[in-house]
């Protein structure tokens, strides 16, 4: 097991929502003239090849819509590739859509257990980690309150804290740090640093180029669903910045 994540010729196509019939009526009306209907297909990723070794910290940068989030969701098995082969070894800690998946009528405590098992954690493991999760989120006083009364920041903190305590082999981080306040952001970065030192593989997607440069050894620059450039993080970031300057 000398590889954590491997993509071989991976492509992902989305068919736009309005292209297919969304109701029986459209289906019935559309049947006789199926050929006329324009297929609005969109390739989010095209023929992506890369390999990430265990313990590596890798950043993905690129403009909006370049396929970064799709790539993370493919690693997390939330999406399935249209073609190509994906190999992932180890437990995934997805820091995606944090705070989503909380049930508003349940208390923070109940949601911790629900969310933990959603991330594939056994009940006993959540029990063991429970105090640490609550302490990290700084929600000791509110943990038995229904989540509907939480602020957006509180939900986010709890979401991050749960995902950060699943002891993942591979941590997927998608831009989540942009939301919390300065102190919490710093705390999250520290937490990621701890993970890295513990030998955890980290895949990091961000527009914050300075953080990418600082955290990641290697970076990928995605543009229109393809890998435009790859190499040492500072080099890729420099090239990306140069291209953005030029484009302006």
């Amino acid at each position, binding site marked *: 097991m000398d590889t954590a994540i491997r993509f071989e010729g991976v492509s992902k196509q989305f068919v736009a929502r309005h292209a297919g019939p*969304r*109701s029986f009526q459209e*289906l019935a009306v559309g049947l006789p003239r199926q050929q006329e209907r324009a297929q609005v297909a969109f390739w989010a990723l095209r023929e992506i090849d890369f390999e990430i070794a265990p313990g590596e910290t890798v950043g993905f940068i690129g403009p909006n819509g370049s396929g970064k989030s799709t790539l993370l969701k493919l690693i997390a098995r*939330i999406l399935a590739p249209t073609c190509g082969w994906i190999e992932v070894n180890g437990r*995934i800690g997805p820091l*995606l859509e944090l705070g989503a998946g909380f049930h508003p009528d349940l208390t923070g405590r109940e949601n911790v257990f629900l969310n933990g098992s959603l991330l594939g954690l*056994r009940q006993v493991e959540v029990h063991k980690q429970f105090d640490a999760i609550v302490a990290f989120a700084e929600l000791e006083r509110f943990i038995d309150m229904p989540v509907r009364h939480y602020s957006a920041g509180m939900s986010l903190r709890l979401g991050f804290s749960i995902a950060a305590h699943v002891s993942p082999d591979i941590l997927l981080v998608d831009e989540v740090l942009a939301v919390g306040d300065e102190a919490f952001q710093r705390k999250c970065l520290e937490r990621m640093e701890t993970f890295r030192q513990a030998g955890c593989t980290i895949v990091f997607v961000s527009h914050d180029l300075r953080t990418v440069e600082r955290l990641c050894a290697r970076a990928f620059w995605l543009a229109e669903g393809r890998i435009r450039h790859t190499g040492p993080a500072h080099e890729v970031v420099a090239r990306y910045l140069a291209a953005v300057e030029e484009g302006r």
Partner: protein
Amino acid sequence: MRNRLHELWQYRDLIRNLVTRDVKVRYRNSLLGIAWSWINPLLMMAVYTVVFTVLTGDQDGTPNYPVFILSALLPWNFCATAIAQTTNCILDGAHMIKKAYFPREILPMTAVASNLINLLLSLPVFFLLAVAMGNPISAWVLLLPIVILIQTAFVLGLGMLTATLNVFYRDTQIIMNVLLLAWFFLTPVFYSINHVPETYTVWGMDLAVRRYLQWVNPMASIIAAYRDLLYYGAPTGWDFLLRTAVTSFAVLMGGYAVFQRYSWRFSEEV
């Protein structure tokens, strides 16, 4: 197949947590709480009893009509609420599907399971009513778990089919409301299957109405079996129940196959 089952086993805590959540949330903000699982069927039973004995007098010949209706109403409610909830389960769970990978069949399974628990919670009220009205309870009720198992398989299979359909065509949940109402009338819940004429003549053709009803509608046989065991205290028609069991498990396999075939697209469509 064995891999799938193994994976489900890995996620058993998620299944348990989701079922607990459903049961907890259902009554959390209500004053009477879990007591509603008793009050609700009793109120519905009262409505049907008034309509069919006092107002129309149709069922005056049925002894202990409240017991008669409740013995079918409980399993029917399980069927109707479970299918309605399962149809929506993928859309309701969209936030979870977009957040992490887990076997998607967990969502229909938990929707059915939480309604099954509701059925089990409401069963004692039936026995209380039967005792209070002097309707004898025989040892045949011990066979009830078999009937419940058959019904659960049927409901889960059908639910996985409608859930899949609903992801791609949102009309499904609207149509299901109408279909469930029609289905309710076509199922011997507030009348006995014995009241359905054996044959009915249309334009000179003899139609075996009762046979058709039982063939086309597995719920008719399932409800009849419940009523045999609970209300009549008699053994049910075993050959018939066996056929219903085969149908139910075929529906389960079919529904699961369709669900598996399309579940990888759920996260893109919800």
